[in-house]
């Protein structure tokens, strides 16, 4: 069931993706800021499928977690990542928190990491059905982590962007 749910979430993300190619001269931000290389050098990642047309990465971590990441790099710059946490980890708060920390370590810019970890420490609702914290890192339009518990799995959404 978990695998079916995981597949459906990843497929759902794919269906949300339209063609997001841009004429580079129109872009405020470098449209190549995010690329396959963003992930191929990360030793926490076992495999990655990069779809350049959609700026989407589908990641399998060394610990077996599935993560789908939508990137933006033109008018705005940032990303939205969805990670699935299995029922084996979702009911163990320390394990679930460790998974979120791993997601943050993988996807948050190095200079922001400490601030995000401090905010994550204040995320007390991780065992609730829904939980969201806005992270007050200066300079971003939005920066938040949100969790959503289903019957047999849990999704963690990390979103941030600047303009």
């Amino acid at each position, binding site marked *: 069931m978990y695998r079916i749910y995981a597949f459906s979430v990843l497929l759902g993300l794919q269906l949300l993706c339209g063609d997001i190619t841009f004429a580079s001269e129109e872009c*405020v931000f470098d449209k190549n800021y995010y690329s396959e290389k963003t992930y191929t050098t990360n030793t926490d990642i076992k495999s990655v499928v990069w779809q350049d047309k959609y700026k989407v990465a589908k990641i399998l971590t060394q610990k077996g977690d599935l993560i789908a990441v939508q990137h*933006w790099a033109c008018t705005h710059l940032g990303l939205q990542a969805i990670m699935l946490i299995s029922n084996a980890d979702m009911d163990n708060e320390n394990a679930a928190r460790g998974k979120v920390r791993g997601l943050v370590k993988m996807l948050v810019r190095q200079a922001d990491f400490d601030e995000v970890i401090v905010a994550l420490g204040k995320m007390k609702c991780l065992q609730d059905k829904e939980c969201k914290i806005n992270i007050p890192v200066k*300079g971003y339009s939005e920066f938040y982590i949100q969790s959503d518990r289903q019957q047999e799995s849990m999704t963690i959404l990390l979103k941030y962007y600047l303009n």
Partner: protein
Amino acid sequence: MANIQFLNHKDSPNVSAHSRKILQEIMKKVGVTKIIITSTARTTADQARIMYENIEKYGADEQKRLYGGYGDKVIDVYIALKEKKKSRGEIVTAMQNKIMTLGPGKVSSHVADFKKMNVVDIAPSSIPKAFHTMFEKTVESDKRISRFFKPPKDPAYHLEIIQ
């Protein structure tokens, strides 16, 4: 009741009564009761200050990787004046002048003269998913909106409203 909220309260003065009226008319037409504005327009002085602070935090190399060609030219001003040991005020002023020379819209789609143009980013998550398509169609058909970006191309609903 069409309720316009701001993620950052300090952004509230950057949205005129004219723009609020347009947004509320769109909300009523769609049936949306609340939106959250995550970002508004900023001045060239604000843009220069933000870019200065980001270079100090993330480093010039990272910022050059992040911005397109026009933003890079503003970062070059920072690098040149920093080497000459100029003060923060002098550097920010020079960066602001460079932004004005290049054309503010080329460095950020959020730099605008509030009296001529209002820019707002609206969090898609603040609008129920069932209303997204109707909201998008309504904005797209509204002649008072001069430019509109939407997900998945962008992380937020980005509206530019002529004053």
